[in-house]
């Protein structure tokens, strides 16, 4: 079966998930991840392609894609910033961080910078409650944030696409 927008590689990555489960539908979340990693977001046609691959209806795929917060139904920035605003981060200054980030990027939460580099989203607890305020950018966590660190992170990302301030493994002991 030829897919309309899924690349051959994406299709074979999805098919490689089949042996892990007794039914094809279980591959839906993995399939959405694989396509989002490849294309940055989930287009309508991609979801239709996935439905065909998994013997589902397009609505079954859309139903699931819209339930889970991490699936992007629209393109996000090259660096997708998610700031945690739940209680422990709130107690450690998440609001100040959010305000600073919005001012610095000149966008509001839910928006993308005109150059497409950064998008900003406010999210609920990311399990880094002892090291707030914190944020996730693409796959990486950044913890114990200050305005100064934010400056450096954004600058690093713009210049070289990654930042040495990313946390990596949970640090022992946790220090600021």
């Amino acid at each position, binding site marked *: 079966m030829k897919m309309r927008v899924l690349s051959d590689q994406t299709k074979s990555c999805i098919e490689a998930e089949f042996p892990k489960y007794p039914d094809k539908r279980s591959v839906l979340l993995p399939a959405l991840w694989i396509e989002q990693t490849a294309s940055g977001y989930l287009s309508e046609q991609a979801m239709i392609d996935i439905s065909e691959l998994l013997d589902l209806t397009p609505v079954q795929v859309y139903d699931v894609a819209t339930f889970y917060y991490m699936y992007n139904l629209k393109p996000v920035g090259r660096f997708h910033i998610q700031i945690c605003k739940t*209680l422990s981060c709130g107690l450690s200054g998440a609001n100040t961080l959010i305000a600073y980030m919005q001012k610095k990027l000149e966008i509001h939460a839910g928006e993308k910078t005109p150059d497409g580099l950064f998008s900003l989203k406010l999210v609920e607890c990311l399990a880094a409650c002892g090291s707030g305020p914190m944020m996730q950018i693409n796959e990486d966590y950044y913890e114990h944030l200050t305005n100064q660190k934010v400056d450096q992170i954004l600058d690093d990302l713009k210049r070289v696409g990654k930042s040495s301030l990313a946390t*990596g493994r*949970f640090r022992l002991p946790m220090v600021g």
Partner: protein
Amino acid sequence: MPVYEKILLKNMEQPGYTGSLTDYTRAGGYSALEKVLKGMSPQDVIETIKKSGLRGRGGAGFPTGVKWGFIPKDHPGPKYLCCNADESEPGTFKDRQLIENDPHPILEGIAIACFAIGAQTAYIYIRGEFFLGAKILNQAIAEAYRAGFLGTDIMASGFNLNVSVHRGAGAYICGEETALLESIEGKRGKPRSKPPFPATHGLYQKPTVVNNVETLSNVPHIINKGHEWFAAIGNGKSTGTRIFSVSGPVNQPGNYEVPLGITFREMIYEHAGGMRGDKKLKAIIPGGASASFFTSEHLDVRMDFESVAAAGSMLGSGAVTVMNEDTCMVWAAMNLLEFFHHESCGKCTPCREGSAWLLQILTRIEHGEGRLEDLKTLESLSHKIEGMTVCAFGDAEVAPILSTLKHFRAEYEAHIEERRCPFRTSVALAMAQ
């Protein structure tokens, strides 16, 4: 400060320990699996875990051995084990530490559990945001397959086991065990109505056990050192250690592994270094956002399942969120309701609609636009959600409101009478948004 022997964080605190298979086997890893496969029956394993008193570390605290014992022994066809690595309860960050620094005990615990219940397939359901955790688990699984600790005919015992990682995609509710199963089945994570229970009708309607990361990590140690050893640690029916995640304005937030049953006072003032700036402690959430608030009056309550329940809250996920005298309790309740409103799966009307109304009223009060009758409405609305939903989420979302109304009613009244937040939190919020 009292020093306790650690069980789960011990390995990773050794200098140079990376969590690789080599490091883990050097520290005695997979010897429990060998002991089980070479000399124990599934029933022996279940009995050992039952006698150890091990209880679920995810939130509900259900006895693990009893849960395993519920799996029908003569059931034809597949059975499943799911490891719940969806750590999402606000305040909790212990599983993240275990997964990222010592993944093999989790896999060894999974293998032993699968042997005990007769499962040949296990899924580790990990929250989508843990990209690094998923990568580390996948690496560890590959290592374990290569070394013959997973796969077919493990240690020439005839026991087969396949383990895969299934990533979530951002939904708190998937930590609820039946929502987790729905999610693995490729559906929206909506909790199922129980009964039937997962022990008989779980994943793909087959007998299934769902256990938390920390719970499973304890299993190899119990097998190696015996149930008597484990049962001797802790307090009464709460045996073993627990990793408590401490957050909020304390001097040293972090994860602390201690025997169950120490006091909140010892945890906060000794292990976590006391209150930052010597501020007065005002409130404690003793077990994650779903647990009722405690006050400074509760500092001498013991941190075990029974003591926390007897004092009117729950030990839950082991997340201790501390708040000081500067924190507005209406804001704290509002913040948590934003969380619950956002995360309600929408299946049950009282929870879906109720969370929106509760949030609306709390926001109004926090911003100085509340009315005195709002407090009654909050209470009556909360009581109409409690116990009226398919899963425990409904009870969880009203806990912060009912407990802050109980302990800090004067703060709510002050917001209404002064027509503003006495802590000026709403002003700070408005500036930020």
